[in-house]
């Protein structure tokens, strides 16, 4: 017989209590595992969505004259000599080594046109790409269904008295205003959007592009790497990573993580308290037994070992069970509760961490009860007196 046998036998005898103790740890660990798994998955999902929903890289020609601008590109007449990009540049973006990370490429040609006697900014876009990158666009009316249909920003529509269905003449070409953008609070409110091919013809700039907005999925690679690759294929262009988008994403994710960590700490404390109270009560129940141990020559350390080994066995088992329950919960509930588009993935570090955390909770919470047990006076414990 070894001290381990005493611990194992006691665990077998006190199944109910040990089950309750395990339950405390299982719930704690499962909650932490589920929270972390779902948060990590949500982070990945959020990163992808944020990357898809907004451009995080802008490719500009080499000029920074600003008068009337869109996305940093000067469209005032004084800046007509600005060297423009081409549709070929836009196509080449999808050839970089990290092309798999390119979610969307939205080229734009920007010019100044006269509409109803007023100067207005015309932005030629590829509508499918534009709508993909600007999920927040809301239209009164409909999306353009062909190159003869355009949309207008809310401010320019109001200024020119345009409504969905209005006929708009630009440089002698008649267009139907399919829809009016609801206020975005951005420069889009001041622009008229037309098919990029038609815009190139209208402005007399075939194949020309003023800027290209790129949505890169930066979860798997740093945005700087993609920026560098774009610079390599377009040495004459100015490639700018929109740091604010990245910062905003980092902040959102960071808040999510903070929330998970705070909740996890609370759950871990509750789990630790359950273990502490259960072990303390177990020690109180075993006073006589510990008295026998001490009377027959067990040193304090022997008693501590018996109790801590019990805690170790229970917390290891509960840690494994807690991880299984937590991961199971994440797999089953994560996609439904958190609307995740990505799967909760197996993470060996999380597995090791969950079991490690469980053991830590078990041992730390049992340390005081074990010390208390070891200090029991054997003669008092056996109630000789």
């Amino acid at each position: 017989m070894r001290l381990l046998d005493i611990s194992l036998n006691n665990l077998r005898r006190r199944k109910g209590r040990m089950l309750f103790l395990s339950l405390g740890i299982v719930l704690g660990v499962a909650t932490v595992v589920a929270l972390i798994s779902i948060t990590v998955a949500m982070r990945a999902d959020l990163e992808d969505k944020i990357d898809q929903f907004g451009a995080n890289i802008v490719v500009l020609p080499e000029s920074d004259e600003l008068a009337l601008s869109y996305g940093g590109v000067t469209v005032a007449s004084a800046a007509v000599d600005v060297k423009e990009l081409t549709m070929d540049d836009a196509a080449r973006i999808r050839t970089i080594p990290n092309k798999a990370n390119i979610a969307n490429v939205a080229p734009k040609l920007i010019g100044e046109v006269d509409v109803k006697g007023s100067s207005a900014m015309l932005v030629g876009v590829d509508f499918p790409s534009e709508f993909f990158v600007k999920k927040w666009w809301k239209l009164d009316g409909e999306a353009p269904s062909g190159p003869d249909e355009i949309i207008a920003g809310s401010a320019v529509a109001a200024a020119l008295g345009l409504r969905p269905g209005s006929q708009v003449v630009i440089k002698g070409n008649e267009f139907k205003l399919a829809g009016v953008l609801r206020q975005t609070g951005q420069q889009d409110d001041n622009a008229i959007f037309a098919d990029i091919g038609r815009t190139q013809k209208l402005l007399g700039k075939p194949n020309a592009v003023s800027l290209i907005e790129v949505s890169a999925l930066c979860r798997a690679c740093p945005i700087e790497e993609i920026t560098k690759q774009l610079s390599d294929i377009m040495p004459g262009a100015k490639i700018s990573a929109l740091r604010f988008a990245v910062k905003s994403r980092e902040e959102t994710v960071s808040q999510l993580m903070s929330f998970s960590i705070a909740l996890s700490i609370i759950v871990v404390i509750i789990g630790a308290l359950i273990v502490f109270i259960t072990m303390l009560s177990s020690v109180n129940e075993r006073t006589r037994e510990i008295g026998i141990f001490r009377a027959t020559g067990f040193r304090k350390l022997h008693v501590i070992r018996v109790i801590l080994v019990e805690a170790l066995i229970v917390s290891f088992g509960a840690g494994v069970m807690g991880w299984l329950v937590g991961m199971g919960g994440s797999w089953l509930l994560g996609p439904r509760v958190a609307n995740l588009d990505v799967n909760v993935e197996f993470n060996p570090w999380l597995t090791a961490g969950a079991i490690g955390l469980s053991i830590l909770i078990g041992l730390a919470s049992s340390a005081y009860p074990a010390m208390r047990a070891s200090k029991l006076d054997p003669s008092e414990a056996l109630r000789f007196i």
Partner: protein
Amino acid sequence: MGLIELYDISKLYQSDGTEVRALTDVELSIDEGELVAIMGPSGSGKSTLLTILGAMNPPTTGQMLIDDIDVYRLSVEQRADFRHEYLGFVFQQLQLIPYLTAIENVMLPLAISKHSNKEQQLMATAALERVGLGDKMKRLPSQLSGGEQGRVAIARAIVNHPPIILADEPTGSLDTHTGEEVMQIFKDLNEEGLTILIVTHNPENTRYTQRTINIRDGRIVRKGATKCA
């Protein structure tokens, strides 16, 4: 000089702010190989005396030597080692661990020894066979009669061959016949050379002992004379 020597042992307790004197100026000498009964009414201090003899309860004053070792000058942990080496206990109400089988209960003192598991098994088996329980080694205490539990408790006390056995009311919860069987085992063990001290309130048990020490109000009133075998 006896195997156990008590010099001027007194024990005071604080109880609800008042001082209770459990033992007063106890002088005692017990020779190696003696079988001694300690008798006295409830509250006389006999169990306190046994815990002091058991190296578990430091006296307020006085000195106790066992095998020339000044026991209460040892540290708490050294006293634990001392108990393991010198003393075997048969506790009041036997105090078997309910979730351990008979043989596991007997092996308990060996759990902290350097003996291999196989050696422990052999020692525990020998101890159980010695008390006539070789056929019930795998039973839990709840599956044994009172007398059998008493025998398991004795086997646990002798398993690592201590020179001294201390027993506190070992027959207290047993019927007369079973109590006599247990006392006979003590007598047999004593004849094999063990020094045995038994706290009892049953005068019948003194038939098996060589000497009876009477204790009353914390004082030894009669040390008794060693009977001839």
